[in-house]
């Protein structure tokens, strides 16, 4: 599984290598419009994703003057559906890149776009009906949980106790946590407790404070997200129990990656779930219009372990995340 | 043939019996007036007849048979309709929608045309040319009352119970109301009419029942009782000195007003108020009386020159008016005068809190002020810590008067001093007002009750359509003269 995703990622970079050549051939072609619809920047990870989306669109617009991009961000599913309908009705898009806010409500509207003969790329969260999209680009939630779980398994003594902070209750969160639990199965590591920190610093801080009151001994924390990791670290510091436990976040926030680079003992590693995956999706959709290579299929970008040794290559100082 | 009757009805709330063995019979085609002081039991009787209360003892008879109305709507279904003082209309709906509220014509789709047609037929019968699609909130108060009456008739009312219907109406509008009542009488409707206005009782009622302290003390047919004997029966004693004797105003002016205008309401009014004088202001509702007063004390934007004791003063807020020695008692006691859900103390001192402590409010001093006020103004409150809304109307008015007098004003403007108040309290308030003038203060009394203005004031100004129509004084202070001025019918003006 891990091997296959790595191979896909390799194939992806190979395709991108073709980009420059294809661009020359398409100079005076007709204008194509690509709509990009993503959730708005309500928390750190989405903030990073928004930044990468804007960054990529700017870059693509320069490289391919005949491509035009329409970006819309939505705070909820209903707004996202309206955004997509507007793109169809008023901007006459030829392709759509969509990161569905929720799977169920977006399935029918995106299917309608597909039926109108447009090219559809779905990012990260799959639609509830298979076979609609031409291209699927996603992070690997199962791997995200599994990689973290394996690290806990390999680096904790048997009999160790850990606590887990979960995200906002969603399928995505369930997949991660189930994979994490599966990876720990059979080990002597005990999960003391799990609570929802909602991918929010303040909520994670509160939950961690209560965990610290409740459990006199905690050896490690899986915070599952770097925003939550920051709140957790602060709560641990306030209780003066920094020496007792380490914390694994997730998604590769630049501040956290920096601390891993610097060898912070409290933050040994991190698991990627890069917000940059939206860039790959936009780039591949663009290629579909400017090259003759068919850009269809499923591309799963695996989650990797960031260690002090390789942290440098995951550090994007310009990104807000 | 009696339609609705009470037989030996008593009603107790807890251990206290408020009605004692009351008999009352309503006949078709007859106006039956029910009079009595506040607290005499009128509203309890109305509630029992209207199905809102059950009698503790005795029975309600409908067409000679005992009935127990479980609720107001049940009584309505039997043809007994109560028109409350506070109208029961949805103000954002049209007249037609209100008339058919809860029994609309049409199935899933409303038949608006039919409802409009029936509404205009009904209103025509009442000689009220109101367009059925007008919204209630765009109607005048008497028109709303007409809609209420129409609503009652459209439900085939056989008994109509009216609670103080004329309290909200002007002189002319009362005339229309009387016509409607006459029409309903001819149609055979039985009407129970509750009112504080004895003149209209004498005019309207075919039969009068006088209540005192929960018992019927007098029954009479039309013409058997004049106003004085009605009042005497209600209070249980003779009211020879209903209005206090008039005073001797000094020639010195206390307040001089010239060229006062309130945009859209009052134009170019000028007058002089003398020290120790009670000056009446009469006129129809809408003639600008209240607006003139509110413009004077800074509650409305106004222009013009005001002098107090010869000195010009600029008044742009009620605070300025207080500083100049003016105070205003509003006609709208419940909505602008008192905080009904707050205690007596909070109400008394609300306008003058700065006198009770710079930073920390001195509740001891406030309590002392309340003690003094309850004594001075004879405020009868069962408990000191009760909320103002639980006081009777008369005691609320006395509390409001005490609140108005707390800044120690030299010039007091009192708008409708006795609206909705029983006879006994009325005469008390008249005495207070006269007392103020005897102390050398000056009082302006605005009133819709002609007899009140005449009985109380030393001089009467009459307003019409925002202007001063004239003034009457001494022997010329007659209802006839005032009405002529108020209506713009040719007559003598000063």
């Amino acid at each position, binding site marked *: 599984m891990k091997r296959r995703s790595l191979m896909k990622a390799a194939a992806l970079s190979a395709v991108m290598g073709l980009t420059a050549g294809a661009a020359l051939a398409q100079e005076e072609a007709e204008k194509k419009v690509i709509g990009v619809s993503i959730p708005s920047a309500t*928390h750190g990870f989405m*903030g990073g994703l928004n930044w990468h989306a804007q960054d990529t669109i700017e870059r693509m617009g320069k490289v391919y003057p005949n491509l035009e991009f329409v970006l819309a961000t939505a705070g909820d599913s209903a707004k996202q559906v309206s955004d997509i309908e507007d793109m169809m009705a008023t901007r006459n898009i030829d392709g759509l890149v969509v990161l569905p806010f929720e799977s169920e409500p977006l399935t029918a509207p995106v299917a309608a776009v597909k039926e109108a003969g447009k090219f559809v790329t779905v990012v990260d969260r799959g639609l509830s009906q298979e076979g609609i999209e031409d291209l699927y680009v996603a992070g690997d939630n199962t791997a995200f949980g599994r990689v973290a779980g394996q690290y806990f398994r390999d680096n904790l003594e048997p009999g160790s106790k850990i606590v887990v902070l979960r995200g906002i209750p969603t399928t995505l969160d369930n997949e991660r946590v189930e994979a994490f639990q599966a990876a720990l199965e059979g080990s002597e590591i005990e999960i003391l407790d*799990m*609570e929802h920190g909602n*991918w929010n610093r303040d909520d994670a801080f509160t939950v961690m404070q*209560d965990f610290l009151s409740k459990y006199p001994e905690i050896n490690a924390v899986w915070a599952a997200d770097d925003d939550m990791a920051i709140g957790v670290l602060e709560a641990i510091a306030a209780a003066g129990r920094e020496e007792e436990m380490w914390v694994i976040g997730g998604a590769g926030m630049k501040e956290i990656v920096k601390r891993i680079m610097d060898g912070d003992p409290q933050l040994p590693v991190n698991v990627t779930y890069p917000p940059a995956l939206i860039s790959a999706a936009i780039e591949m959709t663009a290629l579909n219009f400017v090259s003759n290579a068919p850009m269809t299929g499923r591309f799963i970008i695996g989650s990797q372990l960031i260690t002090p040794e390789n942290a440098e290559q995951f550090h994007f100082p310009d*990104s807000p995340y | 043939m009696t339609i609705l009757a009470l037989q030996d009805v008593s009603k107790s709330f807890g251990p206290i019996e408020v009605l004692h063995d009351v008999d009352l019979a309503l006949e078709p085609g007859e106006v039956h007036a029910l009079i009595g002081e506040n607290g005499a039991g009128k509203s309890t009787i109305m509630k029992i007849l209207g199905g809102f209360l059950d009698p503790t003892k005795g029975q309600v008879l409908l067409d000679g048979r005992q009935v127990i109305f479980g609720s107001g709507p049940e009584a309505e279904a039997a043809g007994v309709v109560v028109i409350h003082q506070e109208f029961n209309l949805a103000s954002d709906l049209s007249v037609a929608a209100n008339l058919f509220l809860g029994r609309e014509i049409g199935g899933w789709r409303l038949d608006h045309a039919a409802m409009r047609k029936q509404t205009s037929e009904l209103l025509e019968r009442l000689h009220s040319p109101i367009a059925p699609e007008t919204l209630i909130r765009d109607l005048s108060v008497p028109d709303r009352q007409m809609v209420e009456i129409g609503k009652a008739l459209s439900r085939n009312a056989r008994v109509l119970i009216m609670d103080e219907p004329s309290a909200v109406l002007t002189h002319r509008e009362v005339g229309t109301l009387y016509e409607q009542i006459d029409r309903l009488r001819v149609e055979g409707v039985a009407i129970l009419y509750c009112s504080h206005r004895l003149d209209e009782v004498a005019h309207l009622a075919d039969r009068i029942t006088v209540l005192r302290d929960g018992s019927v003390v007098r029954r009479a047919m039309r013409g058997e009782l004049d106003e004085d004997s009605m009042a005497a029966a209600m209070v249980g004693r003779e009211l020879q000195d209903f209005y206090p004797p008039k005073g001797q105003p000094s020639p010195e002016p206390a307040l001089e007003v010239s060229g006062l205008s309130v945009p859209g309401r009052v134009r170019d009014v000028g007058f002089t108020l003398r020290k120790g004088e009670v000056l009446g202001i009469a006129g129809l509702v809408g003639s600008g009386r209240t607006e003139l007063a509110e413009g004077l004390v800074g509650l409305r934007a106004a222009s013009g020159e005001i002098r107090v004791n010869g000195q010009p003063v600029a008044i742009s807020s*009620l605070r300025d008016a207080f500083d100049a020695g003016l105070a205003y008692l509003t006609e709208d006691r419940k909505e602008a005068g008192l905080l009904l859900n707050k205690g007596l103390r909070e109400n008394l001192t609300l306008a003058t809190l700065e006198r009770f402590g710079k930073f920390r409010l001195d509740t001891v001093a406030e309590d002392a002020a309340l003690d003094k006020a309850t004594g001075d103004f004879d405020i009868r409150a069962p408990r000191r810590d009760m909320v103002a809304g639980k006081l009777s109307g008369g005691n609320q008015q006395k509390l409001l008067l005490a609140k108005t007098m707390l800044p120690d004003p030299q010039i007091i403007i009192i708008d409708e001093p006795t609206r909705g108040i029983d006879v006994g309290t009325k005469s008390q308030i008249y005495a207070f007002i006269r007392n103020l003038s005897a102390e050398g203060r000056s009082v302006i009394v605005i009133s819709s009750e002609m007899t009140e203005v005449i009985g109380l004031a030393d001089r009467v100004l009459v307003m019409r359509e925002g202007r001063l129509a004239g003034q009457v004084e001494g022997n010329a202070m007659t209802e006839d003269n005032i009405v002529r001025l108020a209506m713009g019918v040719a007559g003598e003006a000063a």
Partner: protein
Amino acid sequence: MSKPDLHTLGPLVALVALIVLGALLNPAFLAPGNITNVLARSAFIGMIAVGMTFVITAGGLDLSVGSMAAFLAGIAIIAMNAALPGMGENWGTILVGMGVAVLGGLVAGYLNGALITKARIEPFIVTLGTMGIFRSLVTWLADGGTLSLDYGLRTLYRPVYYGGIGWITWPIITFAIVAFAGEWIMRHSRFGRHVEAIGSNDRVARYSAIDVNRIRLMTYMLLGLLVGLATVLYVPRLGSASGSTGVLWELEAIAAVIIGGTALKGGTGRVWGTVVGVLILSLIDNILNLADLVSPYLNGAIQGVIIVLAVVLQREKRIAEER
């Protein structure tokens, strides 16, 4: 008057019941550390809710406080980071940040109040608007990410949240002072009496020579000031602000005010009740975290049930009074 008033006692009884329940479920509940945690985290919402009590009592409403807190935290952080090169890593720089938060709060409150009293727009609409504006502004300032305070400044500033006198940390002390002052103002000052009068019937207030608009405006400014103060204590906790800071604080503050017995339609303000309401809300969260009573998915439902119950208890009392 002499008989105990269920209206005011109801929330207090609920609070005591929650404390007993918490202590029974987990002995760690009464540990000084946990008590400090709960009180300190109640402090932000608590101070905001005290201000909200005045606004609601005067017949108003402010939905913008959560976003306003996020925005104030954002500009305070930006101000401190900007002042750092010139002023250095010292308390002066932090005072600049505090000043920006508190003054910003006053200005934001003035903005809300002026739109409501001068432009005569419904408070719900005005503050719904400013809620969106503040939230967007902070997201924009943070470029969709997080605004972080310089590390050195954070270390210096940190004790303002975590330090204090023994177990009693500064947020708790500040909250207590705000609560006492709020109670005193509501009960014993002219301003408090005027606020209640306006909420009870603003026409009566106007006819009693009270400057209704001025008092209303002042309630919004007081609330803004307290949001600023809450921000001053919030920033050192995590040293950061983002688009997700203070989400739903407005509803928690309003819920605390209502649980405490203040009528949503105005007229009666109970600052003590509000403090109890805030503590109840924090305790529910704390106990649910400590005790594994129900699925964490149901935490929101438990809170909802308690809010509705608290209000139902008061309603019962009111109906009984009216009979």
